[in-house]
């Protein structure tokens, strides 16, 4: 009785899971069992284990990994420094603000900025480095992706740092710990939950990036997200598209479980 009353307020969330997560997942699994002619088959799953898709899977992971790492490297110091500024809440909002401008427009702007005659290459010219091809490289792809995801990394880290008890830092310093030691032994471990949720918020969507693979990387980077997009919108092979999605979801779930395991190890 008591227990029942307690979980009453959880209903909306579970309802959401049932209607908007489990139902679509079943739908996707259902579609993945049909081939182009509408026959029930497991061919799509067999197809996934061909070099083309395996290579795509690897590419997706490699880039998602790079994007997460670089986002973290840029975001952590930024979040840390932000907590020390005066109007920190305002600055934080100003970090989020650029994400509200349409992504396609910002990508077009990046094409202009990175272009052969764009400001960056002009700068290179002035510096005597000479013209470089920046667009359509792995670098520009990772750069723009990090640009897109950086607020998702800064926000949780910032929150975690905010909750950090400043007296702990003073205590560590009083006990003679150097800046680096304090960071490594006190600050970082205490903000690890923020880092973890930031990494999740970046890594998971980065796995299925698609638009900028074409716009910024000129189709040099082909990820699982691109493949799904193509199957749904070009070939209209919903079966294969769904199959790739099933694998994507399964791999994500596997990661969550591994992550959860690692977390336990750290805490003990």
């Amino acid at each position: 009785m008591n227990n029942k009353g307690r979980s009453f307020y959880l209903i909306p969330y579970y309802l959401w899971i049932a209607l908007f997560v489990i139902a679509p997942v079943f739908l996707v699994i259902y579609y993945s069992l049909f081939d182009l002619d509408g026959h029930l088959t497991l061919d799509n799953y067999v197809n996934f284990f061909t070099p083309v898709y395996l290579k795509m899977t690897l590419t997706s992971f490699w880039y998602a990994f790079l994007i997460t790492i670089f986002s973290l490297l840029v975001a952590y110091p930024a979040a840390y420094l932000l907590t020390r500024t005066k109007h920190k809440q305002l600055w934080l909002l100003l970090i989020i603000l650029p994400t509200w401008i349409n992504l396609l427009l910002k990508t077009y702007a990046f094409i202009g900025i990175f272009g052969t005659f764009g400001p960056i290459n002009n700068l290179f010219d002035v510096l005597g480095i000479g013209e470089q091809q920046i667009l359509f490289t792995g670098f520009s792809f990772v750069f723009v992706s990090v640009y897109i995801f950086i607020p998702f990394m800064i926000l949780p880290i910032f929150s975690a740092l905010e909750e950090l008890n400043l007296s702990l830092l003073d205590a560590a310093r009083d006990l003679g710990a150097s800046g680096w030691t304090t960071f490594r032994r006190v600050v970082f471990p205490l903000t690890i939950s923020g880092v973890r949720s930031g990494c999740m918020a970046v890594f998971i969507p980065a796995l299925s990036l698609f638009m900028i693979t074409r716009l910024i990387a000129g189709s040099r980077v082909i990820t699982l997200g691109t493949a799904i997009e193509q199957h749904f919108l070009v070939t209209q092979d919903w079966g294969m598209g769904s199959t790739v999605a099933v694998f994507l979801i399964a791999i994500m779930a596997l990661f969550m479980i591994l992550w959860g395991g690692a977390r336990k190890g750290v805490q003990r």
Partner: protein
Amino acid sequence: MKQLVNAFLAIVIVAFGLMYLGSWMNSNQGYTGKNTLTIYNWGDYVDPAMLKEFEKETGITVIYQTFDSNEAMLTKVEQGGTTFDVVIPSDYAISKMKEENLLIPLDHSKIPNLANIDSRFMNLPFDPDNLYSVPYFWGTVGIIFNPEMTKGIDFSSWDSLWDSRLKNNIFLVDGAREVMGMALNSLHYSVNDTNEEHLQQALSKLNKLSPNVKAIVGDEIKMLLANEEAAVGIVWSGDASEIMGDNDKLDYVVPKEGSNKWFDNMVIPRTAKNVEGAHKFINFMLRPDVAAKNTEYVGYSTPNAQALKLLPPDISEDTRFYPSSDITDHLEVYDNLGKKMLAHYNELFLMFKMNKK
């Protein structure tokens, strides 16, 4: 807690305020009235002034909804849940829609202006006798190039793209039919070829093109070429005219081996509610003065022979976009090859993309 509740309430109040403002503007525009016509079209693909004029003449309120690809549009129309009265898909999408019984036959007696259309653009394989569709715009696939950057290379043949001087200097459009079709054409095969051996030859020829390909891109190809990011691009003629509008150094050519000619036609889907209004709209858009103004706004090639006479000579006499019939007869429309073959084309194209590094 109080702060959270206050913030929540404030947001909801602002949202409802905006919603009220929106519906007030909507009713001011007459979008909520009874006599409406919903048009489903590419974004910015009609002169808004023409829609206004249509509304004034007929008293019908036009609702303009947009899509960004034929396939996405197909999914929406197939799935239903919302109605469209006039849709403007491309040729191959029309044959798919016909196949799936998504269209209603047009009543030609209600579209007298159909007579204005050049007979070259009527009665095409994707819609014999124009039972279901009426041409809106048309075009070709060809090579756009920047003479300043290509040092006199002659682009009248597809083979010129394989010239080693064009290393890392070509943009391809991200479409399996276009790129495979180009390779097939260069081997003197049809763009609709389904012979496996020919397709494999096309793929290996494409793989040899790899060093010259700078990137495979989508709609942004226009911006990239106008910015002179590369010297050459394979594009649709509609894109080409827009690029040349932004950067007049560039030139466009349809290679002699042949190419694709494409159409965007007006159709009426089965779920249409205002069939009468839809016919009126189609007839209105075919009126020479309307079609001429619309062509000037959109910048694509009009199939309307009477409208073409009203256009200034620098548009109507431009043979790059209005080629003579001995060239257009030579061009092929993409056939509906069926899902299996289309998937195979895409598979080959994907292999080409993955090989490229």
